[in-house]
């Protein structure tokens, strides 16, 4: 599913973000990625989405070799992913329905399918009643659920969540991770980068800890507590 083989990334500024980074994540896993600021988590995500290319090493995601993937094929690769960000990244002047439908419209999905798929996904994240609301009228937790719905609507085999609970209340954070866990139970791989130790402790998922660009611990059974 996801395979990083000896990946290094050096930015033009000279920063060594990842050093001989190795990780392997199977289909259907739920993985927390933790580590202090500057550990290389963001770079890991960027490489995963093919926003950046590694300086050296091999990356395989969803059966694609990302190092060799042509620029023109990148959009089609991204359609196999669902991405959720800390800052939600919803379009402010579109209502909830359109924000979700947007992901389908811009990827050439027929309108018939959009009309059936969007309400289904809205039901899944528990926002059926808010379809006509604008993002600014929703709470942080609700906005993140809209973003999650948008990530899910393409039926991706991998969900990448970059600090999805960073901007929302602790109680609501739990809901989001719970939702991700439910999605994971249906077979979708989930990679979630987070700072929230309590969440990691609460859910029994694999935890990969990164520091200074390498994996420092990988605990398949949850929990990490490396100090």
């Amino acid at each position, binding site marked *: 599913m996801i395979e990083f083989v000896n990946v290094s990334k050096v930015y033009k500024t000279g920063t060594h973000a990842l050093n001989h980074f190795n990780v392997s994540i199977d289909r259907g896993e739920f993985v927390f990625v933790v580590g202090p600021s500057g550990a290389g988590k963001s770079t890991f995500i960027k490489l995963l989405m093919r926003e950046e290319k590694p300086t050296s090493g091999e990356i395989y995601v969803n059966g694609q070799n990302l190092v060799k993937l042509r620029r*023109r094929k990148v959009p089609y690769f991204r359609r196999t992913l669902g991405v959720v960000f800390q800052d939600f990244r919803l379009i402010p002047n579109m209502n909830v329905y359109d924000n979700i439908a*947007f992901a389908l419209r811009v*990827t050439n999905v027929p309108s018939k399918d959009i009309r059936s798929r969007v309400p289904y996904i809205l039901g899944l994240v528990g926002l059926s009643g808010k379809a006509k609301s604008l993002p600014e009228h929703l709470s942080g937790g609700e906005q993140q659920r809209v973003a999650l719905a948008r990530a899910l609507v393409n039926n991706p085999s991998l969900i990448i969540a970059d600090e999805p609970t960073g901007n929302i209340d602790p109680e609501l954070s739990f809901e989001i991770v719970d939702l991700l866990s439910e999605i994971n139970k249906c077979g979708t791989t989930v990679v979630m980068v987070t700072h929230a130790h309590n969440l990691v402790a609460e859910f029994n998922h694999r935890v990969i800890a990164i520091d200074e660009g390498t994996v420092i611990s990988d605990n398949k059974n949850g929990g990490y507590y490396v100090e």
Partner: protein
Amino acid sequence: MRGSSFGYLLREGAKNIYANRLMSFASIGTLVACMLLIGGSLLFSMNINRAVGYVEQQNEVEVELDDGLSDEQIKEVDKEITLIDNVYERKFVSKDALMEELKAQSDDLAALLDGLEEDNPLYDSYRLKVKDLSRLSSTVMKLESLEGVSAVRAPDMVGEIMTNVKRAVSSAGYFIVAILLVVSLVIMGNTIKVTVFNRRKEINIMKYVGATDAFIRLPFFVEGFLLGLVSALISFGLLWVGYNYILDVIAQNPSTWMTQVYSNIIPFDEIAAQMLAWFLGGGVFIGVFGSMFFVNKYLKV
């Protein structure tokens, strides 16, 4: 690409103009202002050129022939003159005709010439008009070298001045148009940059959910196209109204000088089609390529 998506993209482009109406208004305003300035200076220099051309045509070159040439010899000269390509009109004036002409000019001259009909002291001549005043001196030289030509009288000074005026007006015109063109591109580019910048979030999201570059560009393409089109039509309309207004003012001015000017001004209808084509082409070009250029900057995610 699927038909329904194409329709969606067209609608998006049109919707974006309304959604970003302040920016659209700014873009249209800038484009209209620039096109008006360019169109105005073009019209001005075209008119100056036309006026200079009119004055040019009023100039006559008089070719005086040797005394006592036979009809055959005159025919020969005639043939030679037709071979000079800068001459576009020639009129033979016999010495008898010249005498009649002079007599008609004033009573004093008539009294002086009276009784000389039998032994006419005047000369046969050709009156020529030249196409291009800037080549006047070489044409005069060619005429002088012809067999049977005794003298050539040409308005050298006028020719030189006119040529200089024409050259100055057209180079100044090109210069102004070039500057305005650069200014409009810069301002337009900036406006589009702001429009695209305001929507970088949207572009960014489109990239993350897997929209192709072509798909992201198309609404901007449509938007740029429509903005250019609307601006072109508005500036064309304004220029039309403004130009005809100025024509009216000139037409109503009673001074003869102004009447003379009026008769030489290019009527708008004559250049309307060409002007419209240029405006549409220019507006759409700037709109579309301006958008494309700046959208590309945000596509590298």
